């Protein structure tokens, strides 16, 4: 019993370590999202945790006309310019380094406990409410123009993502059953094509597909973007649902057939309920891809303000040359919230009986 507890303790510690490593990058993002643009690039994010840092507590003024190319004598010791640039350790765990090279000031630094204290909600405010610009006209009158905020883009993203996930998932489940449990010739070919299409760069498909959508008159509508996401996500969803459905125990099908059930009845009554957990687990990935997609949404939905989705909104905010990339920190955190919440809520469905044959050995 004690060895079992010990084992569990080890498991908990190792897993905790892995989780910690996995979380470090995201933690950096989270902390940075509360810092000002300048602090993000100048102050390491882990300075927000208590740490020991060198703090200058004494400044030595050298002669202002001192040449940097020659030996620099401080307290009777000889240093080179290059050494002082990188800092030299001296007795008492202190660091000797240039404070102001131009003014020939050398600082003596000591390690002290410190913590970064400047935080701001500005990044979040700007992302949520939208950037605002105060416009001054020729006569000096001022007026404020508010850029669009995140709210509308969030709603649009939902409108794209939810059907963009559910429609292909339903189709994939049907197809998976058809491939796994009905007999027909050319099954292998169909399966091969699905796997081949898995690796096909969808960007290539965009040109002809967009042309078809335009001639159908559906370009720029939600329908077009649902169809595109459905088709581009179908190979992977089908592949996974097929792997799940074919592993369902043969025995339940056999007894159902004996009772005179048709394929359709078996599908609706047995396969669908048994597949819901599997569908949810692969569905969450499709949800994320659609949620974070930029190019497909931009091309099929168009870049007009009304149809803007989250990744488009964020891209616009960052600016053409990326000058506002600090807004990306808060924007990313906000756009992560929904997928994470869904994952958290759905976890309880990821329990026994979801993937793989539970009876068949």
């Amino acid at each position, binding site marked *: 019993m004690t060895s079992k507890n010990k084992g*569990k303790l080890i498991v*908990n510690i190792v897993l905790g370590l*892995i*989780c910690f490593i*996995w*979380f*470090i*990058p995201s933690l950096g*993002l989270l902390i940075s999202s509360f810092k000002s643009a300048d602090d993000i690039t100048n102050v390491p994010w882990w300075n927000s945790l208590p740490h020991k840092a060198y703090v200058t507590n004494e400044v030595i003024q050298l002669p202002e006309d001192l040449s940097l190319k020659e030996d620099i004598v401080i307290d009777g010791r000889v240093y080179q310019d290059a050494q002082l640039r*990188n*800092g030299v350790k001296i007795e008492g765990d202190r660091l000797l*380094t240039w404070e102001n090279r131009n003014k020939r000031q050398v600082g003596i630094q000591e390690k002290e406990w410190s913590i970064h204290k400047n935080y701001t909600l500005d990044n979040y405010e700007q992302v949520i409410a939208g950037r605002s610009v105060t416009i001054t006209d020729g006569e000096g009158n001022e007026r404020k123009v508010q850029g669009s905020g995140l709210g509308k883009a969030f*709603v*649009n993203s939902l*409108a794209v993502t939810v059907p963009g996930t559910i429609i292909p998932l339903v*189709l994939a489940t*049907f197809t998976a059953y*058809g491939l796994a449990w*009905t*007999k*027909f010739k050319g099954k292998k070919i169909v*399966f091969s*094509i*699905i*796997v081949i*299409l*898995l*690796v096909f*760069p969808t*960007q*290539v498909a965009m040109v*002809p597909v967009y042309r078809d959508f335009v001639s159908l008159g*559906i370009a720029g*509508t*939600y*329908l077009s973007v649902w*169809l595109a996401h459905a*088709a581009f996500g*179908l190979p*992977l969803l089908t*592949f*996974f649902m097929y*792997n799940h459905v074919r*592993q369902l125990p043969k025995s339940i099908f056999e007894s159902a057939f004996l009772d005179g059930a048709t394929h359709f*009845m078996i599908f609706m009554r047995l396969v669908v309920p048994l597949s819901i957990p599997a569908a949810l*687990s692969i569905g969450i*990935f499709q949800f994320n891809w659609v949620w*974070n997609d*930029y190019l497909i949404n931009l091309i099929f939905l168009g870049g007009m303000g009304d149809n803007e989705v989250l*990744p488009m909104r*964020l891209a616009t905010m960052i600016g053409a040359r990326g000058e506002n*990339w600090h807004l990306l920190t808060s924007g*990313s955190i906000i756009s*992560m919230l929904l997928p994470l919440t869904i994952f958290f809520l759905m*976890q309880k469905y*990821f329990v026994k009986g*979801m*993937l*793989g044959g539970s009876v068949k*050995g």
Partner: protein
Amino acid sequence: MKSASGTDKKLIGLFPDKGVLRWLVAVISSILILALNFFVHVSILKFIVSGSLQPLLLAIVAIIWGVVGVYSLHHSLNFCVSLYPYEWSQRLQHLIFIGPAITLLIWLLLLPALRTFRLSFLDKLGETFVGLENYKYVFTERTMVLALQNTVIWVIVGTLSCVSLGLLIAILADRSSYEKIAKIFIFMPIAVSFVAASVIWKFIYAYSPTSDTQIGLLNAINTAMGGEPKAWLTMMQPWNNYFLMAILVWMMTGFAMVMFSAAIKNVPDESIEAARVDGASEIKIFFAIIIPYIKKTILAVTTSITIFSMRVFDAVWVMTGGQYGTDVIATKFYKEYFTFNNSGTGSAIAMLLLVAIIPVIIMNINQGKEEEY
């Protein structure tokens, strides 16, 4: 649903299984039902397209339509099929299931793929036939060859790391006391968009000259231990490729973990308990019981991650743009096809991906063979 199927049977019973009358009824009803379906769905589509609804309402309509519509479509098609003589209805059965998805796939992916195949033999503008010129370029040009090599490394190292780490974490989580929380941590990177990932990893790999504060975590650790700051992503060739791979592993391990975790939960407790009673070590249980039990899931996950690695684009694109010897097939494809507007070479690269996947398909089909019933 029970009554519906009951009606199906009664109707079928009215007619002999073979004969002209049965065929006539079947064909006419099929046409009528197809026409009705067509009319209903086109009307709904037109309504959706007309844009008279708020996006969110529209999405709700779409979901209802997606689920109920697909169900009713399948149900009515199923009814049609059941009207045909038994032999034929059996033949048509599978179409009900795979028809709609296959139609969508053919239209939106397969036809474009065939077009790409054609373009790969044409010149830059897609006008003149150039034979195998584009393929020759793909296999001989220096930077292309480098990209091919890099992709092979990505597929091997990236896939192995994701799958083994995903499996390890799934097993550990299953036995830990805080499974749900742990899984959220590992899953989290999946919710990150690639643009955000570029910022996140900047905080890991950033380089500053020795005299400056390091804002990259790796260099901060490195200098704290007395090392010189290193330019991880740029001048450390070819190791920079592996640092880029870490990004993919970070993002995709969650995928493997979720899939494995689900599969592991299906391993019957009895067999594990029995093995434990027999005194088998945990490692032995893992290899002798768990692995064989979830091998199909392992294959499926390995296949998917192999494909993600072959297609890897953003992780490289946002970090280095393929400079410093980090180009992979997908970044080369994007440069040729979109940046340089060369549909010929771009298509040839795309075709290369399709060919490279064939071994994976064979593995999957062989796996399927074992259990053909």
